[in-house]
């Protein structure tokens, strides 16, 4: 992790920036999709913070809203999606009220995205050198020669031999394409790089290589990363903080080595134990029964309650408040009504913990 002024802050900040504000602060973000059957609140009151040089992982399964959250930061939502409320403050500048035109200043120049499946995001009929140079020309207004030179530097940076700049995407292997995507994301020296499942669909060895690359870039450039993935191991390896989402809401958030070694939220715990772990001594697999709630009509109270073995009566009625613990972890669960609650989670999940109001946990 970095100390002091690093990364993007070495360069001139946007005019309206507040130098004392945190790099990225998202508060109470809500995103709604309008579907034929009704309105779906894909993201419901999500808050988090990203500091300079930090790597934040957003974890969750499909449908939990993690990708929507990331895309809504630069408003790359489909036509039926809309940010309903909340604020997204980059250097203290709230991006939500900005117009499309104004957002152009921030898209790619401050926040860039590495998409999943590089084949989809790369133009198949354009050489990768040109594709990497394009944002430099278009967004930074640099002349073509300078852009080309910079593209070469970026290729170097991500470990692609410079002479491959004239290659087309289909001539590159999967790992190389992903590196090219990373180079493209870095083209305008953004403050934040968001990776949306950047290593899924890659071989495990290539995945390790890419993660190693991201780590190196983070150190050398002082980048701040946001990794969106369902793969907890990627987050465990690369990120400082993790945000666990479920059905559009935050379940748990905190430093990775706290949340993953001593999870508090039942969903986090179940999710972790559902991951086959090659280094674990036991060969077990946990099951999370049930399925995601219908987001058109989310259950009242905690959204995980229907599937939670530790659910109590209050869970089905009242939305759990977010509680912040001393070790920096934030949890939204009725098992933790105050910052000093320490229920035995294993027992609670086995349905054997007396609830706070004397009722046996169900």
């Amino acid at each position, binding site marked *: 992790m970095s100390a002091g002024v690093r990364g993007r802050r070495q360069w001139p900040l946007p005019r309206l920036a507040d130098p004392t504000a945190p790099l990225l602060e998202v508060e109470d973000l809500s995103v709604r999709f309008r579907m034929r059957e009704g309105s779906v609140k894909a993201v419901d009151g999500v808050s988090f913070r990203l500091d300079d040089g930090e790597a934040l992982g957003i974890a969750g399964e499909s449908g939990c809203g993690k990708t929507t959250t990331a895309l809504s930061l630069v408003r790359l939502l489909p036509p039926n999606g809309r940010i309903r409320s909340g604020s997204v403050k980059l250097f203290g500048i709230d991006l939500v009220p900005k117009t499309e035109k104004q957002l152009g200043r921030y898209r790619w120049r401050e926040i860039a995205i590495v998409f999943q499946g590089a084949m989809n995001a790369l133009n198949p009929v354009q050489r990768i050198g040109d594709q990497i140079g394009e944002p430099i020309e278009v967004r930074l207004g640099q002349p073509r020669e300078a852009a080309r030179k910079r593209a070469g530097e970026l290729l170097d940076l991500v470990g692609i031999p410079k002479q491959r700049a004239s290659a087309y995407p289909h001539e590159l292997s999967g790992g190389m394409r992903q590196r090219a995507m990373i180079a493209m994301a870095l083209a305008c020296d953004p403050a934040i790089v968001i990776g949306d499942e950047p290593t899924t669909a890659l071989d495990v060895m290539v995945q390790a290589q890419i993660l190693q690359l991201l780590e190196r870039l983070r150190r050398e450039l002082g980048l701040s990363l946001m990794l969106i993935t369902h793969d907890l191991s990627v987050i465990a390896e690369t990120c400082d903080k993790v945000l666990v989402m479920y059905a559009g809401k935050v379940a748990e958030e905190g430093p990775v080595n706290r949340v993953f070694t001593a999870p508090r939220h039942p969903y986090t715990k179940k999710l972790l134990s559902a991951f086959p772990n090659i280094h674990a001594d036991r*060969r*077990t*697999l946990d*099951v999370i*029964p049930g*399925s995601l709630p219908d987001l058109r009509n989310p259950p009242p109270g905690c959204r995980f309650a229907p599937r939670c073995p530790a659910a109590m009566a209050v869970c089905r009625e009242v939305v759990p408040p977010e509680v912040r613990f001393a070790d920096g972890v934030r949890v939204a669960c009725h098992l933790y009504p105050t910052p000093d609650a320490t229920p035995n989670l294993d027992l609670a999940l086995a349905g054997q913990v007396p609830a706070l109001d004397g009722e046996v946990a169900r």
Partner: protein
Amino acid sequence: MSLQATELTVEPPAAPTRRTRDALGRYLSRTDGVIGLAVLVLFGILALIPTLLVGPLQNVTTATGTPLQPPSLAFPFGTDELGRDLLNLTVHGARISMTIGLMATLITVFLGAMMGIVSGFAGGVLDAFLMRVSDFFLVLPTVVLALILAPVLLDLIGPDAELFGIRSTLIVVVVVIGLTSWATTARIIRSQVLSIKERMFVDRARVVGSGSGWIMRRHILPNVVNLIVAQAVLTFAAAVFTETTLAFIGLGDPSAPSWGQILNAAQSAGAPGLGAWWYIVPPAACVVLVVLAFTLVGNALDEVLNPKAGGRR
């Protein structure tokens, strides 16, 4: 590793979405499709009950008007050189034109779909051969072929053959249209088949032991039906147009006047020179309207039946 065989009872999905109604709804929301359909229904009515609407088809002996009269109250479309009511002729012409169009389409679609599916699925030498055959038919000029085939076929079937109410010459027209149109359909179906046969459910069918015929019938065909339907509609339009052309150059049946036939007669009677516009405009306009309507319907159908989502989800 499995502890208790936990019975994960999964509740069944909600009632099946009514896919047909869904598609119909989507179709009806398209203005072009609705307009096209309306026009077709109108002409369909004309084609089905012409006698009810305008009386029996007039011929030389039953013509009641003065020759080549411009439109009037008694004769809204005027008269031809024999004094026949052009409205009467035009309405009856709908039946001929559309019948021929329909028959030709059936041949085209059946032949084209079959060739396309077999060729696309078989691949290899058979595919190459069939495609070369279809190339040949693709480049055949319709009119030339018609003129060459007409005497030959007429010899074959005799001058008095009749099929579904149309006579020899027109049967020739149907055959010619079929021969020259099937290749396009075949190619289009074939390219769809090429992509379908790579899909995993075809592999799965193989793994459980299905033979090629089974796969073509049960897996390939249902997935190209949408395309076939859309193709059929467009072929119909083309068939009507081609029939009109052929009739115009003389390959028609004077006793069964299609719109093209009427135009042919107009030409022979010297209508353009005489300024008898009422002789030319109605049949021509009908052809244009019908072809346009079919095209609109075909396009709308294509969109509706082949949604982008395809087989996913």
